[in-house]
């Protein structure tokens, strides 16, 4: 867009046309105070705090040319009244006088603050926002020292009101800026908040059941300019100025949101330094300034009671505490003894450095990635290229989401793809059931579970949708494992990769394949050379097994059985899992909050995380434990310096070429500017000072020649009469090890339930909420039934990590459970 030059407080500023005066001032380093305006939201002009004097060049009505004064300069006509800087876009020759140069603007802003304070309670000492509050800051900077209003006429409204179990509302503190409502409506796309009443009685209400039913609710507390919305998690946790901040990466999903952990030394925790809250950290290419509630509230697993503090060893059938030396000696001895017959099983919860060391450690022996989703080798070939940013995509671009319920699997991608669609990108959502993203899709494809490959093949053919995808300037495909197991998702990835290649959507920025992985660093594990195996139980049976960061026994009884028959089991994990219970040696590891490292996101962006809290007990970082174990077995690995391990990675893998820890810690200027002294502008999101990370290069980008495997066409599973097709799906809040310990989320996690179409459920005689007996593949279980209109008839959705071990689509029979009185 063309640039416009204007004068703000006697300073010449050149900004793109369409910029708002408040943003233009911000770019010029001048602060116009705001409450309701937020750079990520559409302006509303509700708070009247940004009042400034605006003058525009006078135009001659006859000629349309500017009127000149005696000196030959354009005559400026100021509006008789103050205008809001947040709703006025800049225009050529505009002259703006902010509170810095205009007495009138100063008086206007002072009056606005005085009005806002007429009913604001004196809660600052007990308010969680106190210390990082826009109203406090702006009152100090622009407000009056005294009020002329009657104390007894202060508005009294409900205080300490839970708006759902995650967010508290204090209606007296609210200044009716509607930032939260506008965030929910425009950005999160979940209109669950609204205003009730009018004038001074106007108040925020939740319009959903359960209250504030949104997975992005925590963000409203960040952008709330007062303490009206605060989180239950941090309620009275500490005063903001007492907190230390440590940059990190969220380990809950493959998006890799940049976070800041706030910590404090606490008497309640026996003087330990503990995590008090999680805040988003700006990375405009990953999570912008947002994060989901799972990332914000589910971090408690790192401090759970189940954390392992010391190495354990099985003695007389019981696990006993031993020294590191004893544990490592035994593990090394046994693993060496069965060297030819050993397996290393890792998960995507580990950092790149851990996985690199583990892969060398495994050497020629079997190295398995614990996952039910395939295709990571293809994302390395045709994955997104350097500079990819969903935030840049819009008109002329296409995004295809297939077999992935992004809302549950990767909420921030959901949010950003939705925004791209709203900017004009062609969004194609293909799935076996109705998904929340359908609402924003240009095209929705509903296939029968099992027809995923066919759907992609059709997109290569001739149809309106295929045409739109082919003609798009840039195209991304997000594929997942909704309703798919390892075989299905591997084929789907191949089909998607081929489609991208055929339509020439590879090797360029904003083009390529993205895997919606179940874990944070699955992509990294694929890059390091780990591959999943079709029959994991068979691979574990009778072997000496080294399991790192995975809990197969907790997920599937069949795998637990296989582990019981293993020769020797070494488990290296952060907490006591069902798998660890079966181990012969347990090595306590550190979660990402206690150490440094890097994760590779689904978009193949490598990002650094930093230590947040001191190590728990005697736990050690995974890469060092592996190095120590390897040393005992005669393999020399780097076990103390992470940057050195990363340099090894950069030298041995072409995708990592040219990357190092310094490069990953580089930061460039980001817009909007948030997290600085002007918290009223962008909210309490942290500024990114510790690295935006870097993309891995894909083979297509490097210009390598490669052959893509053809998609294996698996005959879709069609259930017989009396059976249902059970498909595994991912739920945002599940009972997995990294979520279940968050007590606050218990209500949202709920109990295990299979979802059925109401008609299917009706035929089976099971109503919503009733318990039924299900049997599949020789296993049986009792679960609740949930009805869902968005499903196809004859399909049963089985959520993963809820105790029902379904790793592939299968047929399932449902019987009413015996009535219990």
């Amino acid at each position, binding site marked *: 867009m063309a640039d416009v030059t204007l004068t703000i407080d006697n300073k010449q500023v050149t900004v793109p046309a369409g910029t708002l005066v408040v943003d233009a001032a911000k770019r010029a380093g001048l602060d116009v105070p705001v409450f309701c305006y937020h750079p990520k939201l559409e302006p509303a002009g509700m708070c009247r705090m940004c009042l400034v004097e605006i003058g525009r060049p006078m135009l001659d009505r006859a000629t349309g040319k500017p009127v000149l004064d005696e000196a030959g300069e354009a005559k400026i006509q100021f509006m008789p009244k103050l205008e809001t800087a947040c709703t006025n876009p800049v225009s050529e020759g505009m002259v703006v006088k902010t509170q810095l140069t205009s007495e009138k603007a100063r008086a206007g802003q002072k009056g606005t603050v005085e009005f806002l304070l007429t009913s604001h309670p004196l809660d600052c*000492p*007990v308010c969680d926002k106190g210390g990082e509050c826009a109203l406090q800051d702006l009152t100090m900077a622009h407000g009056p020292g005294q*009020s002329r209003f*009657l104390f007894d006429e202060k508005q009294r409204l409900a*205080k300490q009101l839970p708006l759902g179990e995650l967010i508290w509302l204090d209606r007296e503190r609210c200044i009716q800026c509607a930032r939260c409502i506008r965030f929910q409506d425009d950005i999160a796309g979940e209109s669950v908040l609204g205003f009730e009443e009018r004038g001074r009685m106007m108040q925020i209400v939740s319009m959903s059941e359960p209250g504030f039913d949104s997975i992005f609710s925590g963000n409203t507390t960040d952008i709330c300019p007062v303490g009206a919305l605060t989180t239950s998690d941090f309620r*009275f946790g500490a*005063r903001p100025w*007492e907190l230390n901040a440590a940059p990190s990466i969220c380990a809950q999903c493959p998006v890799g949101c940049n976070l800041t952990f706030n910590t404090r030394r606490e008497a309640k925790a026996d003087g330990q330094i503990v995590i008090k809250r999680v805040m988003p950290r700006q990375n405009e290419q990953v999570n912008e300034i947002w994060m989901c509630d799972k990332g914000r509230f589910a971090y408690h697993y790192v401090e759970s009671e189940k954390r392992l503090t010391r190495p354990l060893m099985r003695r007389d059938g019981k696990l006993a505490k031993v020294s590191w030396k004893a544990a490592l000696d035994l593990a090394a001895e046994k693993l060496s003894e069965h060297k030819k017959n050993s397996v290393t099983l890792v998960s995507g919860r580990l950092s790149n450095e851990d996985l690199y060391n583990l892969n060398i450690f495994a050497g020629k022996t079997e190295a398995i990635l614990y996952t039910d989703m395939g295709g990571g080798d293809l994302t390395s070939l045709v994955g997104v290229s350097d500079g990819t940013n969903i935030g840049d995509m819009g008109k002329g671009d296409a995004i295809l989401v297939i077999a992935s319920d992004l809302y549950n699997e990767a909420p921030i991608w959901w949010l950003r793809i939705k925004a791209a669609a709203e900017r004009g990108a062609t969004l194609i959502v293909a799935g076996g059931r109705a998904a929340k993203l359908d609402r924003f899709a240009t095209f929705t494809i509903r296939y029968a579970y099992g027809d995923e490959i066919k759907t992609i093949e059709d997109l290569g053919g001739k149809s309106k949708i295929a045409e739109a995808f082919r003609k798009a300037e840039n195209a991304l495909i997000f594929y997942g494992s909704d309703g798919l197991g390892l075989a299905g998702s591997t084929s789907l990835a191949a089909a998607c990769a081929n489609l991208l290649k055929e339509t020439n959507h590879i090797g360029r920025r904003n083009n390529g394949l993205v895997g919606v992985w179940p874990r944070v660093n699955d992509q990294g594990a694929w890059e390091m050379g780990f591959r999943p195996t079709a029959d994991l139980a068979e691979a574990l049976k009778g072997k000496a097994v080294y399991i790192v960061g995975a809990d197969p026994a907790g997920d599937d009884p069949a795998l637990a059985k296989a582990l019981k028959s293993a020769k020797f089991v070494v488990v290296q994990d952060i907490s006591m899992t069902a798998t660890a219970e079966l181990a012969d040696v347990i090595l306590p590891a550190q979660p990402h909050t206690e150490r440094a490292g890097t994760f590779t996101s689904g978009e193949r962006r490598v990002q650094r995380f930093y230590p947040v809290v001191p190590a728990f007990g005697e736990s050690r970082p995974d890469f060092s434990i592996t190095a120590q174990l390897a040393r005992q077995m005669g393999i020399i690995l780097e076990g103390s310096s992470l940057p050195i391990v990363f340099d090894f990675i950069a030298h041995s893998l072409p995708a990592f070429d040219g990357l190092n820890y310094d490069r990953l810690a580089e930061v460039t200027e980001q817009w909007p500017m948030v997290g600085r002294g002007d918290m009223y502008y962008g909210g309490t999101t942290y500024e990114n000072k510790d690295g935006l990370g870097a993309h891995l290069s894909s083979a297509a980008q490097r210009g390598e020649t490669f052959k893509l495997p053809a998609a294996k066409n698996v005959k879709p599973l069609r259930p017989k009469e009396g059976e249902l097709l059970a498909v595994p799906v991912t739920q945002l809040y599940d009972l997995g090890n990294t979520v279940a310990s968050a007590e606050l989320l218990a209500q949202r996690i709920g109990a295990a339930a299979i979802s059925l179409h109401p008609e299917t459920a009706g035929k089976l005689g099971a109503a919503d909420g009733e318990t039924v007996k299900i049997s599949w593949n020789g296993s049986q279980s009792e679960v609740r039934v949930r009805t869902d209109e968005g499903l196809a008839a004859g399909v049963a959705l089985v959520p993963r990590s809820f105790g029902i071990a379904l790793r592939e689509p299968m047929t399932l029979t449902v019987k009413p459970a015996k009535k219990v009185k």
Partner: protein
Amino acid sequence: MSLLEPIIELGRGLVITMKQALFNPVVTVQYPEVKREVRPRFRGRHVLKRYENGLEKCIGCSLCAAACPSDAIFVEAAENTDEKRFSPGERYASTYEINMMRCIFCGFCEDACPTEAIVLGDNYELSFTNRRDAIYPKEMLLEPVPSADMTTPRKTEANVFTRSVPEMKNPKDWESGDTVKVDT
């Protein structure tokens, strides 16, 4: 110079000494049997005050800790319920510690306190035999309860103690009848 002169000088000196010894009021206090009274604005050991109804004035806002130039105060807060109430309002101090070895008795904490909960009292008997004892926890700092049934925590009537900070009107302006000036 006569021989008498030194004796006279000696006598003079003795007169002053005797005057001081016999006629001046006694300044020495027989501490610890007798304790000296302190001045009205003396700044001694801190006391955490209570309201007349026994509820703690302290709301755990940590402003005293923020104001403290020697970082002697440590506060942690928790939530009040009507079932288990320590102070009016939603927040109370679950941990309140002052390190008396660090404290310089400047009184900034008193100034910062929004509820006048922390007051520097009369007690100057601060001696410890080890560093740990120099940290005074909340139980040591808190004023004794006026009567046994006013102890904290206690069960209180619902929706009565909803506000942490007492409403502070300026009484002078109020009496004058015209515009009321209230700090916002």
